[in-house]
């Protein structure tokens, strides 16, 4: 008996959680359904209460609740969520990425947006390191690489903007502003996320990255381990600028949120002992 009452007391708090979880799951399911074309009107389902705070910090829960009348939302990498209004991207929007780590950022955004079942096409990156794309988490079965040169380029890119869910436009594409605008229009109607390095026109959001430092390499020893990157975001829905620091790549090749600043001092202190290892003797 006592056990029963105890569980009944615990239930209300538990129920809140479960309700939030159920809503999140339903939202995720509906998002995936609406991605196949059938838009579900959620106005009838929306409750008057404020959405419960995402106590579970998983991206998915956050995603499900962010979807209220704003169209389909596309997830972004967790460490970068602070850069984006509402912590996600609208499907059909465009992101311009410039700066030192543009390729890595393009890949990590594409990985998050492609998720479990969306297709991704990469155009205009002839020198893309394919293994790094796979290491970043892209599924090679749902990835197409499009050289996109030749006179049919506008038609090819338009077909891709209609067909895939994530379109990555590399820096070597040399797009004309007219083509860029028409691609954006197509992508908006087809709910395709466009990620572009150095686009010729304006995009909804602009990310600018600066390398703070690389760690792991000494003088004649060690190997590259992580890069600390500062990413600034500006554009639609952002007042002024937002800024985060991330590790991209981290040791595994993926993106991770950067630890606090203390690592800088460690890093400064690190090289001298490493140098004392005398790599010559070890290698010989």
């Amino acid at each position: 008996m006592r056990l029963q009452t105890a569980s009944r007391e615990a239930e209300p708090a538990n129920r809140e959680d479960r309700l939030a979880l159920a809503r999140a799951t339903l939202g995720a399911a509906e998002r995936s359904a609406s991605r196949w074309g059938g838009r579900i009107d959620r106005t009838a389902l929306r409750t008057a209460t404020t959405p419960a705070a995402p106590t579970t910090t998983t991206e998915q829960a956050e995603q499900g609740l962010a979807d209220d009348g704003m169209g389909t939302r596309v997830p972004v990498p967790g460490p970068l969520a602070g850069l984006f209004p509402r912590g996600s991207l609208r499907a059909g929007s465009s992101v311009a990425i410039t700066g030192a780590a543009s390729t890595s950022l393009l890949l990590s955004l594409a990985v998050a947006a492609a998720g479990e079942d969306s297709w991704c096409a990469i155009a205009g990156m002839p020198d893309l390191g394919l293994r790094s794309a796979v290491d970043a988490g892209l599924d090679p079965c749902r990835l197409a690489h499009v050289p996109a040169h030749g006179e049919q380029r506008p038609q090819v890119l338009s077909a891709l903007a209609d067909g895939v869910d994530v379109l990555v436009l590399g820096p070597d594409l040399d797009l004309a502003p007219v083509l860029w605008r028409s691609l954006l229009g197509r992508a908006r109607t087809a709910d395709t996320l466009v990620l572009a390095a150095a686009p010729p026109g304006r995009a909804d959001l602009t990310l600018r990255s600066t390398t703070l430092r690389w760690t792991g390499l000494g003088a004649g020893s060690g190997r590259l381990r992580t890069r600390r990157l500062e990413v600034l975001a500006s554009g639609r829905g952002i007042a002024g600028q937002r800024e985060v620091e991330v590790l991209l790549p981290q040791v595994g090749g993926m993106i991770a949120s950067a630890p606090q600043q203390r690592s800088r001092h460690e890093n400064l202190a690190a090289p001298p002992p490493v140098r004392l290892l005398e790599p010559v003797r070890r290698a010989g």
Partner: protein
Amino acid sequence: MTLDTSTSTSTSTSTNPASTATRTVAVTVPDWPLLAALDRHQRRLVEESPDGEPAAIDPAVVPVILLDQHRVTHSSAAAREAGALPGMKRRAARAACPEALVLEADRENESALFELVAAAVDTIAAGVDVLRPGVLLMSARGPARHQGGEAQLAERILDAVAELTGWDCSVGIADGPFAALLASPPGRIVRDGRSADYLAPHPITTLRSAPVGPGWGHRGQPSARRTERRLDLAETVDLLQRLGITTLGDLAALPSAAVADRFGPDVSTLHLLARGEEPAPPATHHPTQPILAETTLETPLVRTDQAAFIARPLAEELHTMLVANGLVCTRLRIVARTEGGEEMERTWRHDGALTVADVVDRIRWQCDGWITRSRLGGPSTGAITRIGLHPLQLAPAGESAPALWGSAGEAAQRASRAFARAQGLAGEDAVQVPVRVGGRLLADEMVLVPWRSEKPATHPGPWPGSLPRPVPTTVFRDPPPVALEDADGRPVVVTARGLLSAAPARLLVLAPGAPVLQRLGLRAGSSHPVLAHGAPTVIDERWWTPQGARSARLQLVVRGAGDEETAVLALSRTGSWTLEGLYD
């Protein structure tokens, strides 16, 4: 049946090495449905007449017409002379040729009886596939070598079929199944690499007998379930004729990209066949656990109607296994064991993915065939006690398989439509997919192949010396040359012991490299201080062969433009440095 020997003897005079189509033998029995129906009719006469044998009916003399759904499908030579042509209605045919013997088509009987022909060809060559009743396909290379030439092989097949079954067949040998099929009625042997020339003058209506079907031509997406996309050959031929394409040569002359763009993948396959090529079979798949369905029969199979009862559960069992593995089957071997311990087997090739109904039909036809064969005085086999289905050619079910929520896979279909369109616009190389092949250098490790083409083999490794993570996001196709200098301005090299001659202090970009270098401020002629460097990793590739190459890899962090740290991967080969990759 005589062989056209003027075009025979294709002894290694291969004029077209680019042709990749399999050398194929096609064995056809002309007017097979008519012959089968006639045979059945005669057997019935024998059973009905109590005294003596009725006279044999010779289809060359006696007019015979075969009806299927009230239309004439085949008529014997005498009936054709009298004016009863295929396509006529029953009434019209009877009016044209009142004395004709009218028979009804019976597909079961045709299929079962064809086992006799298949068994006769089996005595000459191995690996005989039944494409449909009346048509056998097999690879020509091995049997021809065994018989001492393709002409000899054809003659042996003709003799064997005539001797063992009493029917005339015709044999055609060519590159690819379609050319072989068309070469078969005139009994020709088309020389190596000349299939396209042979096909060109044929009228476009011959496409109706083309060995195509859903799934076969659609590499990567055998669409077994999408019945609405089933290719209607008659309609396609009609469309092509209306567009003024009257011969196969006309069709072959069209640019393939235009055909793919205008008509879609189905007609692209036909176009491929018309050019004398062979659609590559869907990438075959070898599951880790073998897939096969077998059943032991409690009561041995002696009557043909029993076969129908065992066929469906067996086919469904196989289908469940295939679905569980996400596969479709395009070639099926049916194996039977008899009371006497003898094993019989027959392979059925199908144009597309085999559905349950297709498999049921084939099991039934095959069992009928074996039982009929023993009844017709062939080698007595005894009752069948065990039946097994062995799928020989498995292909992934592709993107068309519906998923849990019913509508998943639509993204894949949408994407594949877009990719097909892009390939139609700008050629096959317009859309490429990455494939891991394995290698030590980053550029070798993964390659790009055109979407929906055959993927190269993977060498799983291990690959000692390959770069651990994180790997550069940019891997140069044309590695830009650089130079490394130590603090005194002397060049830094990797010694034979795999050590650096000195600590590098500056990186010099020698030639204008890739645009990505320009963007990061590594312009030609500029020099950048080296902030950190690792120890060189020696890659000793294929040292046991003359092509062996020794190189060393070095990770560097340099100060690029704008005082930003830039990490690069340098590669030293025969004393000179290039950039293999760039962490951007």
